[in-house]
């Protein structure tokens, strides 16, 4: 069975599980958040191209079931930003720890948690741990010495059976851009989560699911099956399983939300475009394009090139002077070499940003559901 109830639509005037929040969306990227009233009009944290405006939203009224609180504080963020900034030699003007910290917006993004009754039959190869003893023999000075070694192995046997059970809180995709989001944030220690209670989100925005349960179920079912598989492994007193398969009916599906923390910040690149950086709110992993500034590189190259030109000009003058004052040739030669070396050095800031930016092939935040 799959969920059939359509997701109700809440407009901006309707109360959600908390009176402090209201729905607001970004008309540029299409993402929708639950924000506090004083956060209306703030810039969209994940596209940085438009401001959040109140709007109707299609979502479930039930409050989130679990939340993973932020573990990274402002001081740690400063360190994370400093480390990121220090990796770039010629950075955009705006790319500083202070600026990144100033632009930081905390938000929670959603996963679905699905509960389900399951009734059916299953089969798998169950793996049972066992230990074998092995020997090592050493011969030295005419004497043998033995050492026993114990090695763990797995014994596989078929198991099958019936199941009538209930699984709780199997996490499933709640955003269209789920894959991209996981790439950006990395993994979360989900076991550190706690039950949600209003207020835990503090000032953070709450991103609203845009992937309804009806669509999420086909993707969630393998995770539910995996949870059932773990139950079956435990029931069979096994420690491992492989080739698990189940034929079952899934009923009484219940969908709630699981909120995961992230920080979003940005800096402005050479073209004046905001470059979004995402920081996992628990592990502190930072992802996003760390771009060098080609414009600043060119400027530096111009200055250094100018100095090189000046040195070469002086060398030329020195060369002319040799006609009347031969020892000037030494100074001219030195100035010429310095000029050449400086000229070659001017190429580095010209080329390096482009090379660096070409290597920035890591994940970038998705453009949003509107795209």
């Amino acid at each position, binding site marked *: 069975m799959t969920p059939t109830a359509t997701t109700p639509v809440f407009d901006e005037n309707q109360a959600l599980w908390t009176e402090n929040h209201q729905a607001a969306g970004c008309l540029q990227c299409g993402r929708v958040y639950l924000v506090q009233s004083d956060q209306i009009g703030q810039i969209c944290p994940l596209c940085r191209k438009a401001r959040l405006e109140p709007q109707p939203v299609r979502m479930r009224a039930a409050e989130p079931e679990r939340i993973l609180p932020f573990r990274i504080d402002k001081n740690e963020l400063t360190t994370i930003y400093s480390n990121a900034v220090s990796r770039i030699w010629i950075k955009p003007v705006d790319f500083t720890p202070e600026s990144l910290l100033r632009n930081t917006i905390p938000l929670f993004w959603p996963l679905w948690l699905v509960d389900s009754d399951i009734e059916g039959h299953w089969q798998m190869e169950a793996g049972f741990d066992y230990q074998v003893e092995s020997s090592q023999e050493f011969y030295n000075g005419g004497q043998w010495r033995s050492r026993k070694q114990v090695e763990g192995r797995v014994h596989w046997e078929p198991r099958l059976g019936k199941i009538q*059970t209930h699984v709780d809180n199997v996490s499933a995709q709640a955003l269209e851009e789920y894959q991209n989001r996981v790439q950006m944030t990395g993994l979360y220690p989900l076991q550190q989560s706690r039950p949600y209670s209003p207020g835990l989100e503090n000032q953070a925005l709450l991103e609203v699911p845009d992937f309804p349960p009806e669509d999420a179920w086909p993707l969630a079912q393998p995770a539910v099956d995996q949870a059932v598989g773990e139950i079956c492994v435990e029931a069979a007193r096994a420690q491992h399983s492989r080739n698990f398969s189940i034929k079952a009916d899934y009923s009484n599906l219940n969908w709630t939300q699981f909120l995961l923390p992230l920080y979003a910040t940005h800096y402005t690149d050479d073209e004046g475009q905001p470059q979004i950086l995402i920081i996992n709110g628990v592990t502190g992993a930072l992802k996003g394009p760390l771009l060098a500034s080609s414009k600043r590189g060119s400027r530096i190259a111009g200055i250094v090139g100018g100095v090189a030109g000046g040195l070469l000009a002086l060398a030329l003058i020195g060369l002319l002077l040799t006609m009347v004052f031969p020892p000037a040739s030494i100074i001219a030669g030195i100035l010429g070499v310095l000029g050449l070396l400086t000229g070659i050095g001017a190429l580095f800031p010209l080329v390096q940003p482009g090379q660096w930016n070409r290597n920035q092939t890591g994940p970038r935040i998705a453009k949003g559901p509107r795209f």
Partner: protein
Amino acid sequence: MSEENKKSVWTPPEQYQQVESTIPGVDVFAPIPKTAVPDSPKKYACPNCGATTAYDVAAGGVACEYCGYIAPVHTVHVGRTAEEFEFTLDTISQSERGWGDKRQVLHCESCGAELSIPFGALTSTCPYCASNHVNVTISLNEELRPRFLIPFKIDAAQSKQLVINWLGKGWYHPDDLAANTVVGRLTGIYLPFWTFDTEVDALWRAEVGYEHTVRHYNPSQKRWETRTKIVWRWQNGDIQLSIDDFLVTGSSPRRISLRILKEISNFVMNGLVAYEPDYLAGWQAQVYETTLTEAWEVGKSAIREQAKKACYQDIPTNHIRNFSMSADFRDESWRYVLLPVYMAAYRSGDEAYQVMVNGQTGAVAGQKPVAWWKIWLAIGAMLAPGVLLGLIGLPLLLLGGSGVILLAMGFILFVLGGIFSFLLYRKAEQSEAK
């Protein structure tokens, strides 16, 4: 549940049984083990005439000697592919418990007698009604019960002839040994053996000496001479050894001569068949007394010596010192098998001697009496030339003749004679040893 599923109720496949589940609502089914219950004692009687039946080597089945009834044995030939078991900690701990040392009591269904089964016996014949019983001692551990055996290929008459032929061989035994010895009843018995397989990866390190010829000037002789000098170098190497079906007896040395048993242990393991009680009907059979771990220690000691020998062979010269090595055993596995042996005692003079015959290959070994006068005569003959030359040479030396040469030759012959005499004496002694 959907209508379709409700209509067809799921049932587990055949050959599966429900096993314990630790979670309510989850039923778990597992394949039925091949042998879920231990082999139960089995009595052998002829279905035609009710007489006792026994396995007949010539007929290849369980036969009745009264009415001629023969029931073929269900033979599953497994050979060297017979299942092998790993040294799991569970098995090792169970093996170490052994079979216990209690005597069992078996109720004879034929005559109602209560039979006392001696320790370690797998079979029994009722002394009152002569009925044969098999599986009278039962291992509760599936792995540690006999799973494979090599059936007898040689019958009692053939083995007796082999023993008589063997008695007739050798010059230093009594002349009438074969003709006059009364070989007692040959008892066919299945003896327990452990077979071991393993791969051995050995690393060795040693100082290896290489001979170099050096030319040097000898000032006293005023000439150039050559001498051999050994140059020592540290070297290391590795060898791999693959051991297949290394045989170690499971019998206790208190009950059986391991020396004799070793001499007839040229069993061909390709002859292994799956354990079938019918093979044991009317024959004796013993369970192991040397536990798996004890036997493996014996096997391991022998195998590591093989590895050491292989390492020495890997070294290109004979000059070796500070030799050390390590041997890693891996993929160790074992089998518990029953192998056929005839045992008999015979008398020669006042002494009783033991002899064994391999029930598969016919190899014979045992104790053999020695005609010691032949030994002493031979020793005398070997020492005589040396003594004689000495006796001739000594007076000649005293008389100032060329006795020195004869005396030296006599000494050499005496020493050689002494060595050969010692070897002969040892061989004769071993022939009578248990």
